[in-house]
């Protein structure tokens, strides 16, 4: 891949100076801990020098969530036909109820469960343990929601501390109900971020779900699974049709708008296509080892990356699919061109800084670039080394890379680099908007979307243009 053109005013030296100045305001110990997580990009460096997946430095105002958030919010919550039990006190379940935008089909409370199921721990549950309560509530849930296809039990902080054994309760109830009851020990204090929650959830899927089901119909040569698309704002519904258009059969989706039995039968597919590498690479690797299923990372943000990805997917199949790929690319070209023609003139030369979970900063770069926007800084809440290694080549030399950035740091960086847009989360949004800087939430698509696929790019382009060019920003500076 050709290296990005340098961005005016940004050099390794200028970025390093900015980092040094920012660190200088911290206590020494914090400086030492934070320094390895900030760096000026060296596109050809492998591995990327920025360190990641380390403990949050206490007190710095990190934006990270916890293992439970990674399990319930990310992996489990989108599986629409299961009941997901937030096991522990009331808070976690309430805060994560309906706040991720993983849309799902079905009739709520009948065939789909976009709700908050919790054991609402009280003092006595802490003292005497919650296993019996769990048993009871699983029975109650199955009785009141008989069409559920299984349940997940997601531990919150106290559960692991009081010595409850959700695993044996789950086993017992699975037998009793003859339905999946999957324990997931994702207490919020485990690990350093959402990331461990993903991993623990993947492990529970491996141990309790995958391989337990099979499709009625014969396996076909074009069977694939979509891994790591959570249907935020309807992303799956924009991505799946493209894959079907090139002749593939999407047998299951992990986990956006997902169905648990189909997830459990995924081991019969010919290829796993993975969008969010961070949260689900583990399962792809398991299926590769155990069932010999190859996997491929793809990126459906913006026409350039979509085309690149489609061709790579085509390479995994025969000429028929390859031909279809070219047909599909050709079909959407004019429409994509007209989107770019409409918005690029207004966005060309603008810059943006991104800070999102574990995938989107690098994955959306292409879509921004399709619109003429350059990325001057990027970083992740909970990425690992392999994510940063995949990021470095997508960014221009000297641009800023920040891992688990604190509010203090990000504010300084934005103040200095003055991007035309910041793309990050709800906790950051209003900080920057107060400063008059256009902002889009890049976890939730700011209540818009989908952003995946051809359909998604149209909406993405419109939203980014709307954010940057809204006349409301002109009102910020008062004349008096």
């Amino acid at each position: 891949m050709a290296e990005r053109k340098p961005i005016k005013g940004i050099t390794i030296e200028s970025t390093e100076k900015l980092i040094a100045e920012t660190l200088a305001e911290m206590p020494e110990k914090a400086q030492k801990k934070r320094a390895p997580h900030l760096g000026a990009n060296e596109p050809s460096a492998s591995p990327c020098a920025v360190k990641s997946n380390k403990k949050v430095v206490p007190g710095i105002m990190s934006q990270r969530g916890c293992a439970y958030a990674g399990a319930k919010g990310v992996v489990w919550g989108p599986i629409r036909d299961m009941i997901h039990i937030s096991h522990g006190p009331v808070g976690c379940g309430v805060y994560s109820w309906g706040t991720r935008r993983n849309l799902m089909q079905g009739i709520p409370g009948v065939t789909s469960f976009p709700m908050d199921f919790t054991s609402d721990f009280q003092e006595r549950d802490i003292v005497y343990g919650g296993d019996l309560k769990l048993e009871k509530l699983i029975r109650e849930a199955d009785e009141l929601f008989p069409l559920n296809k299984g349940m997940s039990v997601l531990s919150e902080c106290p559960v692991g501390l009081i010595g409850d054994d959700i695993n044996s309760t789950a086993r017992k109830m699975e037998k009793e109900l003859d339905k999946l009851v999957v324990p997931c020990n994702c207490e919020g204090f485990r690990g350093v971020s959402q990331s461990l929650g993903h991993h623990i959830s993947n492990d529970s899927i491996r141990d309790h779900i995958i391989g337990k089901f099979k499709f009625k119909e014969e396996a076909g040569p074009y069977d694939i699974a979509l891994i790591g698309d959570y249907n935020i704002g309807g992303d799956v519904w924009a991505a799946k049709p493209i894959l079907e258009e090139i002749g593939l059969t999407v047998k299951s989706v992990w986990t956006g708008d997902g169905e648990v039995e189909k997830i459990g039968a995924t081991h019969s597919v010919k290829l796993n296509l993975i969008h969010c590498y961070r949260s689900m690479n583990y399962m792809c690797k398991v299926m590769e080892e155990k069932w010999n299923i190859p996997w491929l990372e793809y990126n459906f943000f913006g026409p350039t990356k979509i085309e690149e990805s489609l061709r790579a997917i085509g390479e995994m199949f025969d000429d028929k699919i390859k031909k279809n790929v070219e047909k599909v690319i050709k079909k959407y070209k004019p429409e994509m061109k007209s989107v770019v023609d409409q918005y690029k003139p207004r966005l060309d030369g603008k810059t943006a800084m991104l800070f999102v979970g574990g995938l989107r900063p690098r994955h959306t770069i292409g879509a921004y670039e399709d619109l003429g926007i350059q990325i001057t800084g990027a970083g992740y809440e909970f990425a690992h080394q392999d994510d940063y290694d995949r990021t470095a080549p997508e960014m221009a030399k000297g641009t800023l890379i920040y891992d688990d950035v604190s509010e203090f740091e990000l504010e300084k960086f934005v103040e200095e680099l003055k991007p035309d847009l910041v793309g990050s989360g709800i906790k950051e949004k209003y900080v920057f908007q107060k400063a008059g800087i256009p902002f889009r939430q890049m976890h939730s698509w700011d209540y818009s979307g989908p952003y995946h696929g051809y359909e998604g790019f149209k909406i993405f382009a419109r939203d980014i243009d709307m954010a940057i060019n809204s006349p409301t920003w002109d009102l910020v500076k008062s004349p008096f």
Partner: protein
Amino acid sequence: MSAAEAAVKFVTETPEKEITRVKEWINTEEYKEKNFERTALVVNPAHACQPLGAQMVATGFEGALPFIHGSQGCASYFRSTFSRHYREPSAATCDAMTEDGAVFGGQNNLFEGLENAYALYKPTMIPVFTTCMPEVIGDDLNAYIKNAKKKELIPADLPTPYANTPSFNGTHIHGYDAMLRSILQDLTTDKKIEDKGTGKLNIIPGFDGNVGNLREYKRICELMGIPYTMLADVSDVFDSGCDGEYKLYPGGTKIEDAAESINGKATVSMMKYSTLNTMKFINCEYSGAKEVLSMPFGVKKTDEMLLKLSELFGKPIPEQLKKERALAVDAMTDAHQYLHGLKFAVVGDPDYLLGIVSFLLEMGAHPWHVLCSRATKKFKKEMDALLESSPFGEGCTCYINKDLWHMRSLLATDPVAGIIGDTHAKFAARDAKIPLFRIGFPIIDRVNLHRSPVVGYTGAINMLSMIANKFLDIKDETCEDQWFEMMR
């Protein structure tokens, strides 16, 4: 075939007939009974955990940085919840305890966290509160914070009130109470001067997500010429302007004012249930009169509040407020026909519920299903008495410790015209095909409602307009052509 392979099941499709059956079944009386029988499972609760309430209080003092002792994830949940509701920044920091904290306790995290938070964000006060984790392992906050000061990680004179806010006990309103009590206790220590009152009124708004309400209280005081200090005043923090500069600490109760509050002429709490312990402390320690008022929803409760303030400060009710009262009554008499006789479901925190119910009764509407997802029998008694006080309360029922899935059954089996509550009630409203009037916390799917007061005479007009006009909109949108009219 091996046993393992034999155990592999086919992917199933639920038959349409089954789906239809269950879809109808969940609306039946039989289902309702089953639903009300559950004792372990909670579905769609309408309450949150203690530290959320603590964070609201901690945010309400000028220059204060809320500090969460416990898991990082909780901190992110609280901040996100406030940012979604207010569409504002919600600064708070956390000492991010992890597995080793669970083993060795969280002192080291607290040390490092306090040092960094103070150095980076230069707060005037660091109120500390807890998540589940340190509560379960039994961290000794008092000792830890003292030790942090001894080690000079933060200045010895920096106020660091702390509250234990275990989530497996009470709800967000109790966290509010615990944190407020602790902050006031801390700031007012040694500040009492006998015979030297400030002449001021202390107002405690309680856990109220409506900054318009807070501002309405202040406006009323100003109109009455009563000098006041609002304690835990989040109005300018959770509703700050956009002028091109982000301010980490855009407002809140001044620390000196909070410290001086102990010498006030009177202290009133606008929310009984979220200030029980705070008021206990104030009753013992503060100078002046102490009163717990009912939230001034509707005309009667607003009258009560004004009369009380007038009595406490010997000030007459100003002409302006008399005029506003008349305007509210005018609006209510004009529009009574759109609400009279209609049944409503109401869900929320205890004090909000008492206020909304009082307003509905005033309008001649029936607060048919009143549901609080965590409350005491005392509250239920109070609510029952309120319902009994009016003929419009006849047949109405108050449910405590029930959730929004119970509410769904109530709406399906005993229908009402509309439901009043926070955003979480939208699923129940949709299933029942009735409008949701968003009053409460959080409101995360509409803009600006938190800015428009629902208390006081102004609030009564706002609520009335919101409710009546919605019913008229529905009529216009759904009626057949021959019933579509120019006037309503």
